[in-house]
C-alpha cells in the first residue's frame, strides 16, 4: 500500500458545517477537541461513507474520543445533535427556566444536561453559591515575634483561633517537603560514571582518526517519585483535613520542587479524586472546588470501603513505579476491621512507602485501642502526628528518609503487649 493520497474533503458543505458545530458542542461539553481533529473527522467520514448511522457514530467516536470517561458524554451529545432538533429545543427550555417560567418538566440525566448545556450557546450555568469561608484576617506583615511564631508552631490546629489559623496557613504555604530522588533505569553521560558509554567513545574516536583516547562513561539518571495523598474529611477530622488539604495544595503547586506528580483524594463515606481541583493556583478557590466535589464533608467514616474503592479503581493508575502514599486519618472506622486490614495490606503492597498521619497522636497517653487503628498499624511503614506545624515539619523529614518509621515501633510494641 503506497502512501495514501490526500482524500478530498466532502463536497457537501452542509455536512462539514454540521461537523464543525458538532465539534464545538463536544468541546463545550468538556472534550479536548482542536481544529485538527475536526479535519480528521471530515476525512474519516469521507473515507467511511455515509451509509449507516451506526458506522457514522463509530467513525466520529474514533476521531473525537480519547478517554474512556468521554464516551458517555459523546454518546449523549451525538444523540442530541444528530437526531431530533426539537428535542434540543426542549432541552433548551429546560435549561432556560427564566424565559419559560416552567421548571418541572422531566429531570435530565447529568451527562445529558451537560451535553445540552454545551449545545446552547451563551446559556450560562447558574452561578455557584458564594463561598462560606470563615472570616479570615489577612496579616500582610508577619509581625509575630520569634517566640510568637514558635508558640504557633507547636499549637494544635484545633485550638487555634481563626486569625492564628490564617497565619498558620501562611506559614504552611512556605513549608517545603524535601524529596529524595529515586534511581531510574535510564542513564546519562557523566565524567565519573561506572558504565562505559560506547556510542560517545566511538564518535570521539572517529573524529580523531580511530584513536581511543579515553572511555566516556555513563551513570544512572535519577527521577522524582509521585506522591499520593488520601485525606480523611469525616467529622472527627474536619479541622485537620482542611489544614492538610491546604498543605497538599502547597505541595502540589510547587512545580519542579521535587515530586513528579501529586494526586490527592478525599474520603469520608466515599472516595473523591480532588487532584484536578488542587491544581488551581489560588488556594481558596482550589479548596472550595475540592470541597464542592467531595459531598461527604464531616460525615461518618468508612475507611475500609474507601480504601477498597481506591485499590480497585485508582491504585493501578496513580501508583506508578515508586509512588509514596500519605494516608491522613485518625483511624476511627465503622467498617469491619478485617476488611480494613486486608485493604491496608493491599495498599501497602502496591505503594513504595505508606505513611500514616494521625492527629490523635497529639495525646500523650495515646494507645492503639480502637479496632480500626489496630487493623491499620501493622501495614504502614511510618506513623506520624500531624496536628501542628512542628509535626508537619517532622512529616517532611519522614517523607525524605526511607528508614523513618515514626511512632510505629512504639505503638506496635504497646499493641502487642496489650494483646500478649
Amino acid at each position, binding site marked *: 500500500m503506497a502512501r495514501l493520497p490526500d482524500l478530498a474533503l466532502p463536497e457537501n458543505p452542509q455536512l462539514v458545517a454540521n461537523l464543525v458545530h458538532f465539534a464545538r458542542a463536544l468541546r463545550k461539553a468538556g472534550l479536548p477537541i482542536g481544529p485538527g481533529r475536526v479535519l480528521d473527522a471530515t476525512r474519516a467520514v469521507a473515507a467511511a461513507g455515509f451509509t449507516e448511522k451506526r458506522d457514522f457514530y463509530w467513525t466520529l467516536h474514533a476521531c473525537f474520543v480519547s478517554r474512556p470517561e468521554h464516551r458517555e458524554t459523546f454518546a449523549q451529545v451525538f444523540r442530541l445533535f444528530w437526531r431530533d432538533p426539537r428535542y434540543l429545543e426542549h432541552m433548551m427550555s429546560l435549561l432556560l427556566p427564566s424565559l419559560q417560567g416552567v421548571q418541572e418538566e422531566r429531570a435530565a440525566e447529568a451527562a445529558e444536561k451537560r451535553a445540552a448545556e454545551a449545545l446552547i450557546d451563551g446559556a450560562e450555568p447558574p452561578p455557584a453559591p458564594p463561598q462560606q469561608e470563615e472570616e479570615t484576617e489577612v496579616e500582610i506583615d508577619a509581625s509575630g515575634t520569634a517566640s510568637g511564631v514558635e508558640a504557633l508552631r507547636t499549637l494544635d490546629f484545633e485550638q487555634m483561633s481563626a486569625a492564628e489559623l490564617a497565619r498558620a496557613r501562611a506559614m504552611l504555604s512556605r513549608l517545603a517537603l524535601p524529596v529524595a530522588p529515586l534511581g531510574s533505569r535510564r542513564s546519562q553521560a557523566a565524567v565519573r560514571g561506572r558504565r562505559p558509554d560506547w556510542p560517545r567513545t566511538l564518535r570521539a574516536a572517529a573524529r580523531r582518526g*580511530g584513536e581511543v583516547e579515553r572511555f566516556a562513561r555513563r551513570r544512572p539518571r535519577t527521577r522524582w517519585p509521585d506522591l499520593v495523598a488520601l485525606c480523611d474529611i469525616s467529622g472527627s477530622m474536619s479541622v485537620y483535613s482542611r489544614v492538610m488539604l491546604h498543605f497538599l495544595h502547597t505541595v502540589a503547586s510547587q512545580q519542579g520542587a521535587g515530586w513528579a506528580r501529586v494526586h490527592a483524594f478525599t474520603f469520608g463515606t466515599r472516595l473523591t479524586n480532588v487532584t484536578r481541583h488542587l491544581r488551581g493556583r489560588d488556594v481558596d478557590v482550589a479548596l472550595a472546588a475540592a470541597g464542592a466535589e467531595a459531598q461527604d464533608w464531616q460525615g461518618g467514616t468508612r475507611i475500609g470501603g474507601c480504601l477498597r474503592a481506591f485499590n480497585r479503581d485508582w491504585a493501578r493508575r496513580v501508583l506508578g513505579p515508586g509512588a509514596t502514599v500519605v494516608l491522613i486519618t485518625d483511624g476511627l472506622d465503622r467498617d469491619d476491621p478485617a476488611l480494613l486490614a486486608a485493604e491496608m495490606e493491599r495498599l501497602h503492597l502496591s505503594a513504595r512507602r505508606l505513611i500514616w498521619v494521625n492527629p490523635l497522636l497529639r495525646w500523650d497517653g495515646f494507645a492503639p485501642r480502637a479496632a480500626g487503628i489496630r487493623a491499620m498499624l501493622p501495614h504502614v511503614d511510618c506513623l506520624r502526628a500531624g496536628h501542628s506545624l512542628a509535626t508537619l515539619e517532622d512529616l517532611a523529614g519522614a517523607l525524605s528518609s526511607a528508614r523513618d518509621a515514626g511512632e510505629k515501633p512504639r505503638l506496635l510494641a504497646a499493641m502487642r503487649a496489650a494483646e500478649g
Partner: protein
Amino acid sequence: MQDITSIDAVERMLAAQGYVADRALATITFLALRLGRPLFLEGAAGVGKTEIAKVLATGLGRRLIRLQCYEGLDAASAVCEWNFAAQMIAIRAAEAAGTTDPEHLRHELFSDAFLISRPLLEAMRPQPGGPPVLLIDELDRTDEPFEAFLLEALSDFQVTVPEIGTIRAEAPPIVVLTSNRTREVHDALKRRCLYHWVDYPAFEREMAILAARAPEASEQLSREVVAFVQRLRGEDLFKKPGVAETIDWARCLLALDVIALSPEVISDTLGAILKYQDDIQRIEGATAKRLLDEVRRELGAA
C-alpha cells in the same frame, strides 16, 4: 492483498482469522487502514488488544514488528544501536592498514554495515509484502520521555539517527498501540491516533469468540463457561477476567475432559480465570456454587 475497501470487508477479514470484532472495532480498524493513522487501543488486560495486530498482520500478509514497552526503554533499544565491537575491530583494521583519514573513517564506521536496527527503524524500512504492522505494546509501561520520542515516529513516520540523519518510511506502516491504562498517556500522542476503548464482550459475542478460538468445546460447556465468566465480571473483584482468561479456562476444562461445570471443578481450575489470591478466596466455595446455580437457572430459562 486482501480487500479492505469497506467496513464489512475488514470485519470479514478479521473473522477469517478467528478474530470476532464488534462493529465499532471493525469501523476504527477500517479507518486506521484507510487514513493511514495509528490505532490506539485501551482497555483492561486480556480483551484482545494485542491480538488484533497479530490478526491484521496475518490477514493482510504483512510482517509483524513488535515493540514491547518497559520502564526505561530508550532509543538504543527502540530505534537502532551501533555494533561497537565491530566498529572497534574496524578501527584497528584501519590502523593496521595505515588509513587514518578521519572523514573517510567516520563515513566507514557509521554506515549501514555497523547498524543494528531495532523495531522502530525496521518498521520504517520497506518489507516484503508491503508496509509492516508495527505493534507498540503496553505503552503505559514506558515513561513520558519515550512517549514524546514516539511523536515524531507516529506523526511523520520517520525516525532520526544522529549519525546518519532522518530515515523516512516510503509507505507508512500500520501502527497499533495498546495500553492497559495503568497511567494516562499524554493527549499529544493520543491526538495523533484513532482511539478505541476495548470493552468486555457481550454474551453472544463472547460465545462467537470461544467458538472461533476453542472449537473443540461443546456448545453446552461453552455456554456455561461464558455465562459463568460474565457473571464473575459482575462480582466485586480486584481484577476481572478478560476474554483471554475465558479461552484459557475453556482449554483447561477440555484438557481435564470436563463436560459440564461443577463447584469442585471450578474450585480446582479457578486459577485459570482469577489471578489474585483475594479474588480467588472471595469466589471459591459458596460464591462459586451460587454463581453456578444462577447460571444454570438462567441458561435453563433461555
